[in-house]
């Protein structure tokens, strides 16, 4: 059996999108080389990036809905939600249980699954923190966007995806997206 390479079908790996941020998270994580890649459409990537920039200097967050098949997960929809962390949202995010229920119901209506979440790390690397680990579920993809505010306007400089394994350790998964909108259609 042959499988078209991700690049051949227009999928490109994400990671550093510009200059890396200087600050580092406490949790280093590891790369899960055998994991299937996570694919996010151009539109989903743009939604996550605009959410992260709009929330800056706070943390933005949302749910990722898609399909899970033999070639990995494909995220087709991003649902932005309010950060319920209140005054702590400069360094924390909190997704309300009600928003989780709504996302699950929306996914069921669309024939999709809640496969992941995204959130931003303002002025920090796109690496899971200790706090991310404490409030995480296994088998969800955790897309983290590093938003850097050192320039004249904040920009997203790094996008990476992680999954918590059954031993509650985060491993990185390959994150693929399209560079232009036309490739997503």
């Amino acid at each position, binding site marked *: 059996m042959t499988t078209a390479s991700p690049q051949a079908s227009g999928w490109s790996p994400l990671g550093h999108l510009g200059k890396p941020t200087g600050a580092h998270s406490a949790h280093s994580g590891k790369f899960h080389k055998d994991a299937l890649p996570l694919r996010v459409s151009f539109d989903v990537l743009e939604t996550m990036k605009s959410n992260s920039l709009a929330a800056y200097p706070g*943390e933005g967050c949302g749910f990722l809905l898609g399909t899970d098949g033999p070639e990995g997960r494909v995220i087709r929809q991003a649902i932005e939600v309010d950060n319920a*962390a209140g005054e702590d949202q400069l*360094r924390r*995010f*909190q997704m309300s249980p009600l928003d989780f*229920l709504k996302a699950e119901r929306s996914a069921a209506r669309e024939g999709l699954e809640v496969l992941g979440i995204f959130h931003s790390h303002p002025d920090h690397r796109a690496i899971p923190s200790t706090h*991310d*680990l404490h409030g995480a*579920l296994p088998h*969800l993809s955790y897309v983290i966007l590093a938003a850097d505010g050192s320039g004249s306007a904040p920009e997203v400089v790094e996008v990476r995806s992680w999954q918590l394994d059954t031993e509650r350790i985060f491993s990185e998964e390959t994150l693929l997206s399209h560079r232009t909108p036309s490739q997503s259609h």
Partner: protein
Amino acid sequence: MNSIIIPTPLRKFTGGAGLFESTADSVKGLLDDLVSAHEGLRQHLFDNDGDLRSFIRVYVGDEDIHELDGTATALTGNTEVSIIPAIAGGIA
């Protein structure tokens, strides 16, 4: 019979089942029966002290058990309980 609804990400531990049923007469009993039947769920629902993880919310009908008697909340039979994650994190 009381039932508990499992959120999608945790159904990997229940063989895909979204519903678990038990005759337990309290939330604690129902959760204990659930993790005994599906041991892989235990560490994701409970911390090392055996307490429910803080981001795991349990609802009896439409009410958070924190507004009731916590895990001691009694179940009268044919009650629907839901496990709903309140996913959280942050840089510091």
